[in-house]
């Protein structure tokens, strides 16, 4: 494999507040390393509030004050030179954004300027990068919207005139129209119905294939991961607990949490009750010591209570952080 486009190493990002009578420390991203190759779609799944959004924000350098990066680095490699996204200047960052790196925020239905027509938002974000005269640019945008099953007249609408799903698609279009090399997408399809979602995913995939872009894709919908991503990372309580080829993870999850997650996936036609995980999700302000999953883990032992398991490569390209991984299942 060639040089990875993105290398995250030892990343630690906490929310630290201590003011006005409130003092808290939320360890939302705690020592995460991963790397993503060119042309790869990397899925990120995990428990709700396990820190996926935080991780992604840190990667995209969308850091707002209570969030602090305490350690680690996020290095992108666009072209030949690696850049540490936390250490470059504002201008340099501005040049990278949208041309090379675009980001779809969680809650993307709310990120459009309520008093600006969609058309102008496209101009704001993409015009510079596409570098064509206006009519041509608009044509490009229109074509692009078409792929997302959006009528060209959404360009003339104000955001509030669109339904949640339409807004989400607009945001996706906005993030992909410049055909960036790296796309970060945080639950971009939650408000879409399955028909549209399928189309949107197909479009994302198509672009990705055309350009050889890399994508980080966060969603709770494991079916999306199954159908879209190449590799999958599973997060739990601020940590990456498992990572591997999507097929491998679905077939043979090694971390007990992943195993549970896969097992609890609903399938159309299921009638038997699925079981949720016992116990409460950990509070990141005060995470359990050792392996953070141990209070809910059926396989937990003493060591799990004491020590945090490191990520270890269990089989080629398949890592997990567990002292007692699930047995490997042959393909």
């Amino acid at each position: 494999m060639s040089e990875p486009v993105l290398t995250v190493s030892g990343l630690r990002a906490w929310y630290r507040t201590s003011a006005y009578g409130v003092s808290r420390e939320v360890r939302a991203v705690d020592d995460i390393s991963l790397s993503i190759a060119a042309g790869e779609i990397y899925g990120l799944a995990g428990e709700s509030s396990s820190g996926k959004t935080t991780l992604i924000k840190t990667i995209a350098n969308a850091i707002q004050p209570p969030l602090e990066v305490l350690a680690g680095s996020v290095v992108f490699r666009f072209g030949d030179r690696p850049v540490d996204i936390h250490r470059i200047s504002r201008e340099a960052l501005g040049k990278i954004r949208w041309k090379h790196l675009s980001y779809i925020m969680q809650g993307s239905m709310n990120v459009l300027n309520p008093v600006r027509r969609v058309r102008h938002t496209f101009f704001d974000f993409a015009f510079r990068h596409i570098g064509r005269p206006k009519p041509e640019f608009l044509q490009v945008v229109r074509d692009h919207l078409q792929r997302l099953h959006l009528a060209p007249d959404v360009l003339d609408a104000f955001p509030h005139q669109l339904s949640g799903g339409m807004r989400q698609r607009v945001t996706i279009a906005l993030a992909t129209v410049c055909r960036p090399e790296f796309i970060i997408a945080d639950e971009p399809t939650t408000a879409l119905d399955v028909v549209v979602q399928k189309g949107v995913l197909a479009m994302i995939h198509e672009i990705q294939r055309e350009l050889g872009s890399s994508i980080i894709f966060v969603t709770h919908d494991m079916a999306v991961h199954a159908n879209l991503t190449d590799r999958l990372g599973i997060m739990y309580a601020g940590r990456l607990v498992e990572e591997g080829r999507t097929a491998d993870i679905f077939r043979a999850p090694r971390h007990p949490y992943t195993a549970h997650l896969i097992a609890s996936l609903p399938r159309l036609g299921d009638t038997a009750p699925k079981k949720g995980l016992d116990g409460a999700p950990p509070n990141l302000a005060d995470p359990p010591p050792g392996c953070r999953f141990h209070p809910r883990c059926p396989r937990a032992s003493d060591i799990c209570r004491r020590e945090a398991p490191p990520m270890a490569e269990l089989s080629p390209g398949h890592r997990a952080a567990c002292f007692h991984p699930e047995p490997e299942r042959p393909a």
Partner: protein
Amino acid sequence: MTGYPLYLLTRLGQFALVVFIGINIAFIVTHATPIDPVEQSIAAATQFGSTSPEAIALMRQSLKELYGLEGSLGDQYVSFWSRVATGDFGPSLSAFPTPVSTLIGRALPWTVALLVVSTLLTWVLGNLLGGLAGYYRRSKALRFAGILAMTFHPIPYYIVAFLLLIVFGYLWPVLPISGGYKMNMTRDWSWEFIGSVAAHAILPVLSLALVGLGGWFMGMRSLVSNIVTEDYVAYAELGGVERRRILGSYVMRNALVPQVTGLAMSLGSIFNGAIITEQVFGYPGVGTLLVSAVHVGDYSLVLGITTVSIVAVSVAVLLIDLAYPLLDPRVKAR
């Protein structure tokens, strides 16, 4: 009929009601004053001379007749409305028999020109500065500019005007300090005249701007401080949208609605004139007219000016309401 036309109609009704009530209040208040235009006229006419008491009694009687103040308040009310309905405010009592509309017409262009220019200037600058200061919160220069604007803001206007006058009229006498143009000039559209008018407007405009800036500045700044925390601003920043554009089209554009409302209302209320400016700089305008009319109990003139002002402000408020859906697309015509 539904939707916008219905809204328009009811809103127009509200407009008419407000104008009607407003003018009535003005009528009542002006007539409640103890100042009697006849006595004022007599006092002025006999101030330095000696007039026998019998003559004064006679004078009082004939002036009452002349000014048409004979009837009851009710009669005056009826005749007032019947005149106003035709756009006529009658003769001024303190400059009898010159029509009120002539007096207002002479003063109004100056007031409008001076105040439109200074209001717009102040509005644009204040909002720009407030927007910048709210957005670039850490900029030292902007913070300083903010403090500066806020320093001038609370200084009584009279003082600011006078300081300017002393500085530019006496210590360093480069600017004219009195009147709307040089004495003995022909009022035509020559460059010389226009230049003189412009030069004479500098200090009045400057003083109004210095004092007014802070208000808009503060308003904009606090509006912006709310908006910068919105998601769409954060997202635009992430998208690498130029900061200028973010400031303009994202941050300030969203804060604009109340500010435009404010602008419209200030523009509407310019018809009251700028009393102190006119006094200090000897600038022609409606303010002086109003003050003197109030002083001598010239009801017709006071009512004329207030009516113009009431209508102007109401129109401004009406326009703003009608334009609301344009300014903020989220607000539908209700």
